[in-house]
Each structure stands twice: as C-alpha cells, then as structure tokens.
C-alpha cells in the first residue's frame, strides 16, 4: 500500500508540472492525456485501499516522505497517512477529479488555454490529497493553502473578466481570514501539547480537557479555545455562515471546477478537519456547540437564499453551502461517521448536479439564467435524467421501511436522526432547522428542475441564445470565454417572473458529447447507490472507522431509536417542497410574482443574500483602503516625514548657507564628506583604543 499511496498523491503533481510547464510545447491533447491519465491511475489505486478498509483487511499506516522542519522542540515532516478517514477522502477526491478531468475534455474543448486548465486541476488534486493524508497539522495546512491557491487560479481562470478576478481574490482573502484562525490554532496547539503530530495530539487531548490557558489577558478553557480557532479555519474553507461569501462568487470559474472544488472536495475540507480532530473536539464542549450552531445556521441560511436565485450555478452553490451545514451539525452532535457519510454521498450527487448544470449551460450556449431555460427535457434527455437522479438524491427520496432510497436519503436522514437522537436542546434545534432546510432544499431543487426541463421554451429572451442563433449557433467558432451572468450586481435580475411566452427563438440545444455524458452516467450510479451500499460501514461499523475518528457507539444506537415521525420527516418535507415547487413553477406561474409583490422586503433580503456582501464591503473593504490612505498621507508623509527628515533638512537649510550649498551640490562632495566622517571616526576609535 505504501507505494500506491505515493503514486496516488504525487502522480497528479507530476502531471500538473508536465502539463503546466510543457503547455504549448506539448499541446492540448498531450496535456489532457497526461493529467487525465494520472488521475485515472490514482483513482484505480484508491478504490482498493478504500474497499480494503470496508472489508476490514486494511490497516492504517504512515509513509514518511521527507523531513520538513526541525526547530527546537518543534518538528514536522512530510508524510502520508492512510487510515479509514483518509481512504474515504481518497476515493471521493480521485473519483470526482478523474471524472471532472474527463468531462473537461468536452466542456473546455473550445478554450484556447487548455493545458493551463488541466494543470491547475491536477495541481488542485495533489494539494487536496496532501491535505487528507496529513499526519501533522502543518502538512494539513499546506494542503489547505494549496487547494486555496488552486481554487484562486481556477476561479480566475478566465482572467480577462474583471468579475472572475474579483471573485478569485475574494475567495483567497476570505479564506485567509479563516486561515488566521487555523494558524493561531496550530500555534496554540503547539504551545499546549508541545507537538504538531496529529496522533500525538489526539492521544493527549482527553487529558487536557478542563485545563486553562492565557489568551488575550483572560484565562480560558484550553480545548475550547484551540478547537474554536481551528474551527474558524474550517468555516472559511467550508463556506460557513459569516465566511461563506466567497463561495457563490466562486461560480465565476468554469463549471467543472465548481463541481470538483466547490462542491465535492475542497469545501468539505473543513468537515474533514473536524472529523480528523474529533477526539480533540470531544474535549471541547463549547466549541462543539458552536460547530453545531454554525452548521445549523448555515444550513438554513443558504437554503433560504437558494430559493430566490436565478443563476443555475448559484442555486447549486447555495445548496452546497447548505449541505455543508448538515455535515457540520452532524459532527457537532458527535456523529462524525454520519458527517463523513453525508460528505461521501454529497460528493457524488453534488458533482453530478454541477456537471449536469454544466451540460445544460453547454447546450444553452453559456446561458446560466434559468429564466431563459424551459422545456429542455426532450432536447437533452440524457442530461435531464442525470439531473433527475441528482435531484432525487439531494432531496433525500427514499422510504425507511422499504430500506430503499437514493444516496442523500441515507445520509441526510442519518444526520437529522443523529441531531434528534443526541437528546440535547441544541440537537433538537439543529434537527428542526435541518428539517426546514430539507423542505427548502426540495423546493429549490425542484424549482430548478421545473424551470429548466419542464414548461415551454423561453430561450428567445436570452442574449446568449439570440447571439448564438445570429451566428448560426455554431459553438466551435466561439473562442471567447463564456460571458457569465453576474447576478447580484444587476438590479433588473430581481424581476421575479420569467418571460413564459418567449419561445425557442429558432435555437436548437444539442446534447453534450460522450466525454461529458460518461462522467454524468458514472456519477448517477453514485447518486443512486452510494447510500444503499455504504450506509452500513459508515454509520454502524465502529470497526470500519477504527481509531481514525471518535466513534460514539451510544449515539448511533440513539440515532436508530428515534421515533418514526422523525424518520419520516425528511420524506414528508421533501414532498411538501416538491408540491410547492410544482404549484409555483408549473401549475400557476403567476404565484412567484404575486408572492414577491406581497413580501417585497423579505424577497429582497433573501435575493440579496442577507446583504452580507454589502455589509462586509462597508465595514471591512472600504475602511481598509481608507485607513491605508490615511496611514500613508497623514501618518508617513504628514507626520513622520514632515517632522523627521524633511524637518531636519529645512532646519539645517535655514540655519546654514554651507548646508544649502551641500544640499544642492554634487554627489561627489557628499560622498567625500561621508568618507571624511568615517575616517575621522576611525581615527578617534584608534586613539581611544590606544589610551
């Protein structure tokens, strides 16, 4: 296993370097082949490891790579750790990444800059693999920042677009706010535990519960402090409420990127971190309560916003944000295995939804606004069915007593049952918020489906479409990066109702090619069966997890013992959401407009994403620039220079004509004076020394 993990992790890096530096010399085809091939190899090597853990035949191990830093008592090395938790992440990352690589062959076919794109994708995969195989906190941070870099580069991939650049910087900087917490958490952990090795920390953590540490002059609970700081890092990466603002904007990146990074893998790094450090969090009750609370709050917040957006990718982005909330509150109540299970199934169905959306966007000539879709069911049937499976999975369709259901049914139900079964008030709150969010999830997911695939075509009203029709809708001639909608900026977007009578405008959408459809097919299998197959080991099998997470046997029993109404709540709310979506977007399409007219403020609040961006801009971004100018103009130039060097100069110039001559005189004179001064000083030293 040790050699295969080395290949899994470093082959993508090698491929990224080859494709990135080879770039135009190698050409599109070779770059694509190298990177995609590397990922399929990594994927093929990852599944046996995972299945080994499922079957109970594999054991965890650590493969050392290279010494990194040794400073005083602090030391950390490059090493690859493989245990159950890592194995789960390995299959998620390599599978989705390999499929996304393949999908991009079709999706990015028109792009002039393909080697760069594939190099970034493989680089991302490498960084993500380093993150999940980390044996110490610093290597985890390396992966953490590495995926951040790749995310920055990929969001800004179409770097000519100002909105893409802005989104890329925003993603990086907002993540850095979280990283501040993560870094402080690492420093604090070293101070308290004297080590950065994850196994050593986790072993010592229970004994450290209840201890105190000085922080900002106060004395606080050590474990709570450390876990909260680390969790701030997780909040940034996983786009939790407060630090979520970058994720919707990150949709500026090409759609395959959204599927890989901003749905299936990178954004789940925060959940992974909490699970990896679960014994530490178990020693920190306040921190765990915070995790639960933030998770539940994000879950409901993002779901509410998702119901109002028109951009198909933004709907799915908020949906991702919301689903991450589920994972966090599952972890918060102590059901780490369940959190990881939801992470696992979510990776499949959310990647499926994004790639499906990409296929729709591809068919609709880069139009992303759902108001200009409609009636696509018959035009792109394969994409439709893939999206259908994704929707059935995310809305959690399944019947408890029949023991059948799509992937999301198994994991989301388990999350809600764990929250309820936990038996605390906070757990109850999380359960009810989660159930409400599930209703909203069903509503916005079906809304997306109805607006896109049902009803009559509304394509004619779209600029992209009419442009395409005008050009003889030949996609291959379109060498410009797609102009993406930038919702949120355009006020007219708040028009609540699509133009239902617009018609096709003479446009003919066409189904995507095989390279895009094969990944959709494979992910559909995941969305259908991943829950059914793996619910057992993930939820019930303590031996499966081994030492890799904190496994709470009693909680799992409580989870299974919840009343029937709890078990059927997800199904019921799914049906309610489906009904309302059907009512408003198929039955009577005037309802949304009427609703908006009636609740104008509420709609504006939701549509504008609770005004987070506006508030942050006012209290952080603008003041930073304002302060910068003041520090510069008033601080440096107005005070320091004025009374410092300039003041000294003018005083000297007023006082002495000689100085004025020197001031205006030649440089040689200056240098001579300096030299003379030095010689005088040295002579003096020597004479002093002689005494």
């Amino acid at each position: 296993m040790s050699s295969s993990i080395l290949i899994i992790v470093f082959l993508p890096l090698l491929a990224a370097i080859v494709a990135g530096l080879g770039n135009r010399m190698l050409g599109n085809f070779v770059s694509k082949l190298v990177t995609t091939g590397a990922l399929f190899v990594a994927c093929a090597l990852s599944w046996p490891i995972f299945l080994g853990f499922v079957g109970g035949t594999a054991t965890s191990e650590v493969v050392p790579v290279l010494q990194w830093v040794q400073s005083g008592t602090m030391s950390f090395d490059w090493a690859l750790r493989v245990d159950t938790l890592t194995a789960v992440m390995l299959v998620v990352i390599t599978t989705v990444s390999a499929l996304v690589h393949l999908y991009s062959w079709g999706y990015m076919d028109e792009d002039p800059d393909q080697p760069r794109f594939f190099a970034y994708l493989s680089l991302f995969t490498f960084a993500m693999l380093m993150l999940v195989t980390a044996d110490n906190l610093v290597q985890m941070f390396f992966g953490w920042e590495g995926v951040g870099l790749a995310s920055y580069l990929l969001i800004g991939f179409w770097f000519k677009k100002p909105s893409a650049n802005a989104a890329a910087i925003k993603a990086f900087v907002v993540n850095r706010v979280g990283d501040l917490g993560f870094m402080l958490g690492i420093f604090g952990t070293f101070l308290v535990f004297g080590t950065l090795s994850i196994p050593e920390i986790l072993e010592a953590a229970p004994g450290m519960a209840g201890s105190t540490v000085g922080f900002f002059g106060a004395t606080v609970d050590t474990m709570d402090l450390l876990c909260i700081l680390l969790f701030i890092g997780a909040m940034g990466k996983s786009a939790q409420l407060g630090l979520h603002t970058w994720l919707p904007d990150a949709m500026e990146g090409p759609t395959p990127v959204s599927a890989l990074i901003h749905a299936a893998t990178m954004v789940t790094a925060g959940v992974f971190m909490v699970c990896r450090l679960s014994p530490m969090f178990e020693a920190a009750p306040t921190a765990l309560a915070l995790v639960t609370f933030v998770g539940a709050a994000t879950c409901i917040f993002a779901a509410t916003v998702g119901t109002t957006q028109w951009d198909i990718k933004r709907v799915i982005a908020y949906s991702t944000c919301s689903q991450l909330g589920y994972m966090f509150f599952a972890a918060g109540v102590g059901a780490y295995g369940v959190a990881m299970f939801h992470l696992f199934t979510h990776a499949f169905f959310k990647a499926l939804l994004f790639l499906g959306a990409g296929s729709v966007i591809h068919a609709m000539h880069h139009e992303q606004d759902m108001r200009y879709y409609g009636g696509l069911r018959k035009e792109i049937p394969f994409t439709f069915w893939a999206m259908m499976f994704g929707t059935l999975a995310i809305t959690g369709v399944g019947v408890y007593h029949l023991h059948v259901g799509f992937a999301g049914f198994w994991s989301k139900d388990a999350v809600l049952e764990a929250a309820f079964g936990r038996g605390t008030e906070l757990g109850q709150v999380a359960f009810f918020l989660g159930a409400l969010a599930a209703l909203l999830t069903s509503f916005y997911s079906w809304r997306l489906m109805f607006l896109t695939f049902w009803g009559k075509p509304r394509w004619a009203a779209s600029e992209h479409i009419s442009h395409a029709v005008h050009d003889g809708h030949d996609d291959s001639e379109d060498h410009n990066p797609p102009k993406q909608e930038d919702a949120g900026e355009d006020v007219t977007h708040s028009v609540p109702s699509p133009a239902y009578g617009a018609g096709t405008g003479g446009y003919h959408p066409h189904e995507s090619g095989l390279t895009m459809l094969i990944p959709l097919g494979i992910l559909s299998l995941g969305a259908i069966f991943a829950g059914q197959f793996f619910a057992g080991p993930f939820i019930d099998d303590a031996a499966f997890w081994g030492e890799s997470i904190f496994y709470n046997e009693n909680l799992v029993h409580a989870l299974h013992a919840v009343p029937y109404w709890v078990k059927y709540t997800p199904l019921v709310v799914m049906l309610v959401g489906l009904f309302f979506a059907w009512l408003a977007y198929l039955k009577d399409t005037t309802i949304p407009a009427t609703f908006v007219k009636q609740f104008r403020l509420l709609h504006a609040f939701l549509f504008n994403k609770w005004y987070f961006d506006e508030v942050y801009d006012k209290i952080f971004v603008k003041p930073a620039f304002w302060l910068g100018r003041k520090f510069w103009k008033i601080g440096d130039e107005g005070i320091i220079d004025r009374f410092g060097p300039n003041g000294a100069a003018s005083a000297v110039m007023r006082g002495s004509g000689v100085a004025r001559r020197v001031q205006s005189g030649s440089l040689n004179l200056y240098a001579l004076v300096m030299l003379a001064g030095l010689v005088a000083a040295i002579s003096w030293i020597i004479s002093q020394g002689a005494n």
Partner: protein
Amino acid sequence: MDGFPILSLMLLVPLVAAIACLLVDAKLARMIALVATLIDLALGVVLWLNFDIGGAQWQFTERQELFAGFSYALGIDGIALVLIALSVFLMPICILASWESITTRVGEYMAAFLIMELLMIGVFCAQDLFLFYIFFEAGLIPMYLIIGVWGGANRIYASYKFFLYTLLGSVLMLIAMLWMVNVAGTTDIPTLMQYDFAADAQTWLWLAFFASFAVKMPMWPVHTWLPDAHVQAPTAGSVILAGVLLKMGGYGFIRFSLPMFPDASAQFAMLIYVLSVIAVIATSLIALVQQDMKKLIAYSSVAHMAIVTVGLFAFNPQGLEGAMILMLSHGLVSGALFLCVGVIYDRLHTREIDRYGGLSINMPYYAVFFLLFTMASIGLPGTSGFVGEFLSLAGIWQVSAWVTAAATTGIILGAGYMLYLYRRVAFGTQRNEDAAAMPDLNAREWIMLAPIAAAVLWMGVYPESFLAPMRQDIAALDARLERVTPDYDSNATAGEGRPAANAMPHVEAGEAH
C-alpha cells in the same frame, strides 16, 4: 581548508575587480563584475560545503592584530554563513539585472556594486567590533552613490533621506561601542557576546544599538526612507537593498542586542512588539493603496521585517530560527519581486501599476515567475516565506497571544495587497498597446529569476539545509536568553480531564431498530 584565508579571499576578489572596473570600458567592466561575483559565489559554495555543522562555533577564523587592540579578525558561525551565502547568491543576479539597463558610467557602477559586496560579506564575518562598524557604516557609501547617481528623477531627495536616517542611528551605536570596549577591555565580538554588562548599562547600550538597527530593518516609524530609496534606486540597487542591507539590522539584533544585552532585550521586548505590530498593520494597509509597484513592495518589506523582529524577540528557538529563515526568504523573494518589476520597467519605463495589465497573455512565463514570488511573499506553504513566518509566529505565541494574533493579521492583509497587485499587472485585459506588445522573458532574465525560484521552493520544502548550520548557534543564544525570557499572557495549566463532550448514556435500540 585549515588555515586557508577563504574569507579574506572573498573580500579581496571584489576589491580587485572593483579597481579593475574603474580602469576599463563598459563592456569589459560588466564582464569583470560578473566573473568576480561568480567567483565569490563559488567561494561561498566552498565555504558552505566546508562548514562543519555541529563543529566549533566560530569557523574559518583569521586574526591579525593591528594596533591598539584593534584587529583584523574574521570568522563565521552558522548565522553568518547563511547570510553570506545569500549575499553572494544575489550579487551575480544583480550584475545581470544591470547588464542592459545601466548605460552611463558603467565602470563606476560595477565598482560600487563590487565594493558593496565586499562590505556586506565583511559585515557578516567581522569578529572585531570596530571592523564590524567600519563595514557596517561604509556600506552606506556605495548604496548612497548607487541611488544618487544611477537613480530615478527624485534621486537626490531619496539618497539624502537614506543617508540622514542611517547615519543618525550609527553615531549613537559608535558611542556605545566605545563605551563597551572601555569597560570590557576587548573588541572581540565572540568574547563580548559572553560578557555580562551591568543591567542598567545594558539599557543605554541597547537603545544606542537599537537606533541603528531599527533604521536598517527598518522598523516603524523610522521606515520612511525605504520606499523612497527603493523607488529611486535602479533595479539591482533595490535588490541588494531589500535582499541584504535590510538583513544587517536583523543580523545586528541577533549578533549584538540579544546576546550582549539580554536583560535590556527582555526589558524592551514589549517596545519591539508594539512597533512591529503597528508596522505589520499600518504598512500593509499602506501597501494596499499604492500605485507604484516598487513602493508597494517596499512597504510590504517593512511589514515582513516586522515579523522578523517579533520572531527575534520571542526568545525561543522557533522565533529565532523563524526570523532567520524569514530574513533569507525575504531577501530572495523581495529581491525577486524587484527584479520582476525591473523586467517590465526595462520594457516600458514606468512603475505605475495601471499602465500594465493582462501580462499573462503576452508574457506567460513572466506571469508564472511573478505568481510564484507573489505566493512566496504571501507565505504560501511550500515556499520559503511560510517556513519563516510560521516559525516566527509560533515562537511569539509562547510569549504573547496578543502579539501573535495581531501580527498574524499580516497574512490576510498580505494576501490582499499582493493579489491586488498581481491582478492589476498580470490579469485583466490588455489595456495598453505598448504593454501588450512587450516580449516575454529573454535568456538573461531567465537566468536571473530561475535560480531564485529554485531557492525559494527548496527553502520551503526542505528548509533543513538552511536550519542545520544555524541550529547550534541558535541553541547557544537561546540558552543565554533562557534566564530573561519574558512571559506575558500565554500560561497553560494542565487540566483534570473530563468525559467527552458528546458522551451519552446507552439508549436501548427502540422499536424502530
């Protein structure tokens, strides 16, 4: 290598070459300078390879008694070794950077740089207090001339400001040195590093040295000479200024202030923290609003060097080693960033950020290098910047959580101003035709940037190569500082242990199971 005066040879080579440069024409002067700096680089490699890690503290020592206790004494420990290596590594790159951009008085220019190299190496290997002083202060002169003669439009003001600030500090240091020699009766630096000055005397001595080193670092609020000097200096001047001259301040702290005046260092630690934290926040914000590329990088240097001072005064191995690595890293990275500015300045003759844009299109390889150095400046793990910042900040937490939290905000602001710069230069559309027509890196520029890129990654992935030579010296310094280590607000107390937060009683599987 026993007895072979390699350090003297490293001083002699640039001196001879400098004299030769003054006598020949421009073309030959360039060649002489390049060959001489490459010889010094080769000698530097020999020096490193022969340095006995874990051996004697002071190696390659040479001593020639001159007069009145003043001696020509050279010798290096691991700290000096890595800084000398940095100097000789950057020098040939500087000569290459000036290859085409300097056309007037080339011989004098090359001579100034070679003298500069001599003085820099001298500073790091001097073992006599006054020999150090001479090297330290004389370093002003060539840099002053480089800015004043070959600088930009406002060079007189900049060179004057540079001169005024730095000289002011050094006068006080000289007086302190004289006092020390009178009391301790020796000018030998290794001996002085073990000498215990009276505590109250230390206070004044520390402040006198601080005046000089703080200006060199530069620390807030005596930093305002740096942006002007950088803006006016030719590219290679900026590289040496940021790459090596600023490191003399940090070297001063670690060689003089900390070991010679440990009590005073502890006494004034809070002063250092406060000034550093102000520098991190204020100068980072200032960098955010700059329109001039060099000024932006200059301000970022102030912010980065503030993390160095914080690390130095953390009084533990992580802080000290982190500060040293960060100094090396900053020398490479900011030097490289100034070279990157120089590359496009040579083509368009402006440093104004808005005149560029979309350079990723016509200069893709340039954009890759620029991105790498931007990320190293931001402190991305895997680059040298991370190792330095991480260790420094981890070190200071052991003293004060406040200072750590405040200084760590630098990672957010740093990402802000550097990415904003990168976006305006390399991304976006090609707004200006002349900028869009600029060709990508030529062979000479590749040779300048590629070695630095390699070094940055090396230091990020395997910093052990650079930490190992210093380890013993840092440990010795740490032992000397142990007694005085301040303890502000980070006290940990062991806990009792309690049940897991989510521990719960067993619930029988109910009817639903």
